[in-house]
């Protein structure tokens, strides 16, 4: 059994508390919404809000009516990880009436520090040293990974990944049930969050390098895993079932992506593989790790310019990196170096053919778009672990005293001088940088001259670590507050309103906001990010203003329907019909002939519904369903300007009717005269049942994990007491 690391709870407690407070202080303008979220964090907020809104109303949102005039929601759900039981922390208070923003900012902070706590524990099991673990925790918490909470959703897969490695290593050391369940739970979370291929690549490469560096231990791990599973059949079966189940949503999503019913033009642009999730190698290579690093140097060379997405670690990390030149080689360091080096090679497609090689041979490499993610997911935490491991080794060696101690101090001095030279060369005039440098030098000086205890050395080094990020994030906050001013002066508060989904409510909107038309006569749309295949066709080929005008109203009632062949006829026919407001809808030529009623004489223009009327009003509405009450004087063709997609069905007075793909991309149905209830419904009941079952399963597994962890801790305490008694 592994002997647990020596604990110094008081120091850990203070370090945790202070780090969290400093972090929260540094980003308070974002946490309190004085400055806006940016980039992917905006859509993350959007989708999370929509998801929580729906879930708290008892609906699992399979459809997103606000994205691209309606689109399947699976892709966006993957970004947030819909089965993550921690989302309960938002859902329950939200249901009880707490506002969404405080819950959101509280949740992202919690989740970030949950990840950092995992990193601290991971560093502790790797180094078996509290000092190193705390330093690693502070370095990573105050790195620019913290900024990514407000400009990306990377933490949603970073946190479970960190915990996965923690559980993996603790399981390798002692085959405890909680470690096994922890691994399974994290894998399940990762398999349902965004694209799991990043994680799969990270784990597979880890196993390969681990086997290379620790061949005996690798075999021992497999044997121990097998033995554990044989000894714990119930837990193993449950875990295997969980692992199989968590692949179901991903598999279904992957399958639907192969059918091409939805598109991701920006992502899939020019890709040869038919699956719309696939990406051309050149697209992935365009912005990889070197580009991200070069880009970051611009913002980190002068902290006053600091901005989001800049790869940044406090100055102490670089001092320790240089200092580590003199550290002794051990397998841990070699493993970390080789593994990190592999990702540098993989992430530099213009420098090495590794990515292209894997792209051509391993299927899931076709689904990466962001190679630079590895910089944040692997390189950054690995860098921190690497430098603290080196420091720990040097401090251990320095205890020998004499010449060894002196030579290590000389290395520290040289490292500081080299960093100072780099700062001067870079013309870095930030005060905090030089304060950090001086404090770090003083810490080493005093420690090696035995004027500081190890704890005090840690305290001073931590001070040197936190001072620089505080200045950097101060400038970041300041510049983003200015962004708010720009928005305010341009009177574009809608951009700051952050979310379309803030408007999503139980009250149905009959129109899509205000009609804002673009100035030019015929305008091309920007490429669509995500939408159904038919909506994308409209988006790409139709005048942007005509399309905006048309989709402004969600319901249009027509008297007449004409057949239209997507393959042969020009989309401009429909465009002209919309421009002139003709009372005719178009359905595909292969629709059943008896339903085409081209002979009916039209009575005036088509009827656009812009609010509840006697003839048509919405009586029930949620993400997957729209129920209408109609009272028409004559039979009419109703076009619901929400994207058509396989899986949608229509019911008239409870009886399933024929749903048409109308006007290229939308849903249409013939509605008879008189009082009727028309209902559009998406998704089968069994699909929703699977999703809800998974939600419950994940929550159950988390409870089981916590329970078994507590049981293992109690058993360990008992064992330790027994050892002490003996």
């Amino acid at each position, binding site marked *: 059994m592994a002997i647990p690391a020596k604990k110094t709870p008081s120091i850990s407690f203070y370090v945790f508390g202070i780090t969290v407070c400093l972090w929260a202080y540094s980003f308070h303008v974002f946490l309190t919404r004085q400055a806006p979220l940016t980039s992917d964090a905006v859509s993350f907020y959007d989708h999370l809000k929509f998801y929580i809104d729906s879930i708290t109303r008892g609906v699992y949102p399979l459809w997103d009516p606000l994205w691209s005039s309606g689109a399947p929601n699976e892709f966006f759900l993957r970004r947030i990880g819909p089965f993550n039981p921690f989302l309960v922390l938002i859902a329950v208070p939200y249901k009880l009436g707490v506002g969404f923003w405080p819950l959101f900012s509280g949740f992202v902070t919690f989740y970030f520090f949950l990840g950092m706590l995992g990193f601290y524990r991971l560093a502790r099991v790797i180094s078996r040293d509290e000092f190193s673990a705390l330093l690693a925790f502070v370095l990573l918490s105050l790195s620019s990974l913290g900024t990514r909470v407000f400009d990306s959703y990377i933490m949603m897969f970073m946190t479970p990944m960190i915990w996965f490695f923690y559980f993996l290593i603790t399981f390798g050391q002692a085959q405890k049930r909680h470690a096994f369940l922890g691994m399974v739970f994290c894998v399940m979370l990762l398999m349902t969050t965004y694209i799991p291929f990043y994680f799969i690549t990270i784990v597979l490469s880890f196993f390969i390098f681990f086997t290379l560096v620790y061949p005996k231990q690798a075999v021992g791990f497999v044997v121990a895993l097998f033995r554990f599973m044989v000894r714990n059949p119930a837990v193993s079966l449950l875990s295997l079932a969980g692992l199989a189940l968590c692949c179901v949503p991903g598999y279904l999503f992957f399958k639907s992506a192969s059918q091409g019913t939805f598109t991701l033009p920006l992502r899939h642009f020019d890709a040869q593989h038919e699956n719309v999730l696939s990406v051309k190698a050149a697209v992935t290579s365009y912005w990889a790790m070197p580009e991200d690093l070069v880009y970051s140097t611009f913002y980190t060379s002068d902290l006053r*310019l600091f901005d989001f997405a800049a790869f940044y670690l406090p100055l102490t990390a670089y001092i320790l990196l240089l200092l580590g*030149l*003199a550290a002794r080689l051990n397998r841990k360091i070699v493993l970390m170096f080789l593994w990190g080096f592999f990702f540098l090679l993989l992430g530099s497609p*213009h420098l090495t053919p590794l990515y292209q090689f894997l792209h051509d041979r391993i299927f899931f490499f076709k689904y990466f778009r962001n190679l630079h993610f590895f910089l944040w997911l692997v390189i950054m935490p690995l860098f921190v672990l690497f430098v603290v491991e080196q420091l720990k080794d040097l401090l251990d060696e320095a205890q020998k005293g004499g010449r060894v101690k002196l030579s290590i101090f000389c290395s520290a001095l040289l490292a500081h001088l080299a960093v100072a030279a780099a700062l001067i060369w870079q013309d870095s005039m930030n005060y905090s940088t030089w304060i950090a440098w001086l404090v770090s030098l003083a810490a080493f000086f005093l420690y090696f001259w035995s004027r500081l205890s190890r704890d005090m050395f840690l305290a001073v080094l931590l001070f040197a670590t936190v001072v620089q990020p505080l200045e950097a994030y101060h400038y970041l906050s300041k510049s983003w507050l200015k962004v708010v001013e720009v928005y305010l002066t341009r009177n574009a508060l809608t951009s700051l309103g952050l979310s379309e989904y803030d408007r999503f409510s139980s009250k149905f909107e009959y129109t899509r906001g205000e009609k804002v038309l673009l100035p030019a006569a015929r305008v091309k749309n920007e490429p669509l990010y995500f939408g159904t295949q038919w909506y994308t066709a409209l988006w790409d080929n139709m005048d942007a203003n005509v399309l905006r005008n048309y989709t402004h109203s969600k319901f249009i009632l027509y008297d007449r329907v004409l057949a239209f062949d997507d393959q042969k006829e020009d989309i401009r026919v429909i465009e002209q019909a919309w421009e002139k407001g003709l009372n005719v809808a178009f359905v595909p030529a292969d629709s059943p002939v008896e339903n085409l009623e081209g002979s009916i004489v039209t009575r005036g223009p088509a009827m656009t519904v812009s609010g509840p009327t006697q003839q048509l009003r919405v009586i029930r509405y949620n993400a997957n369903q729209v129920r209408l009450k109609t009272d028409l004087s004559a039979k009419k063709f109703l076009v619901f300007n929400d994207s058509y997609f396989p899986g949608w069905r229509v019911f008239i007075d409870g009886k399933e009717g024929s749903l048409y793909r109308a006007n290229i991309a939308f849903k249409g149905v013939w509605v008879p005269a008189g009082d009727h209830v028309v209902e559009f419904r998406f998704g089968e009941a069994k699909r929703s049942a699977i999703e809800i079952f998974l939600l419950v399963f994940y929550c159950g597994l988390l409870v089981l994990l916590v329970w078994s962890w507590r049981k293992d801790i109690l058993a360990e305490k008992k064992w330790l007491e027994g050892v002490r008694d003996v």
Partner: protein
Amino acid sequence: MSRAFIDPRVAAFLNTYFKRVFLLYLLAAAFLVWGTRFPYAFNHAKFTALNRYIPKAENMVIFKEDPAKLTEGDLKEFERYYEKAALFMPRSAEARALKGYSYYYGGDKVKAQRAYSQAVRMNPKLFNFYYNLGIIALDRKDHKKAFAHFKDSVAVDPGVNVQSISGSVWYIMFLPSVHQPQLLANAVGTHVRDQYRRGYLQLLISCELLNDHASMLLYARKAIANDFLNQGVFYYYAGLAAYQLNEPQQAVVFLQEAVKHKFQYAQVYQVLGLSLRALGRPESEAAFKASMSLLKDEKIYRPEAENRGLLIF
């Protein structure tokens, strides 16, 4: 008994001093050195990243034409962009020069001078590097240096200068008709011709400030020989230099040409009058009269107005 492969003392020494992390760093350094064989990878990273810092498109033309109109924040944006460009492309003289250009308008003339000096060392075939150095020297009242820089500027072969501008991505992005080589060549030609005219003019002004009339006459003659637009000013300087060099005969010829070229200012008639008087010719009185009347109308040539602190982009 097996013999040790190496002496145990050597092994211990190696183990103590060489089994260290720096071996891994050496490996990484070797990789980086190997990587330099693929400059495309580095350039791609630099250019792709640099493209993300490009200043706002609407400010690009203003930056070229009249940067003084830009706000401090906008100028800072250009400054950072060209700083990064110079850092990413350490061999690009133009990137350095444009860095200097943005420093100048940002108010830091010392940094601007340093950047242009570096640019000149890297590429001595561009007229505007010297010219701008001259303007900066004039601003700093260093007339000797200004004279030297302007002299160097007009000594640059115009053909080579045109070639350098047309071949530089940094300038071409600001010039019209990039996709029509003929139009581009014409545009660059006209642009360069105008630059040289300004170069000669500044050179003559610095000669005047230095009271170097021999050089003034020499360069004024050269400028006249170049047949620039609005030649009057060059005839004036030639006339002034000739008069100061006690060659009134020649001065009268030049100054009369200046008047013919519609360069009619009080000074021209005054120097003309003086030259005519030196020759003992009666027309001198008429010239003085004309000078007085122009003086009353404030039609005075102000050489300092020629340098409005404007650098050549």
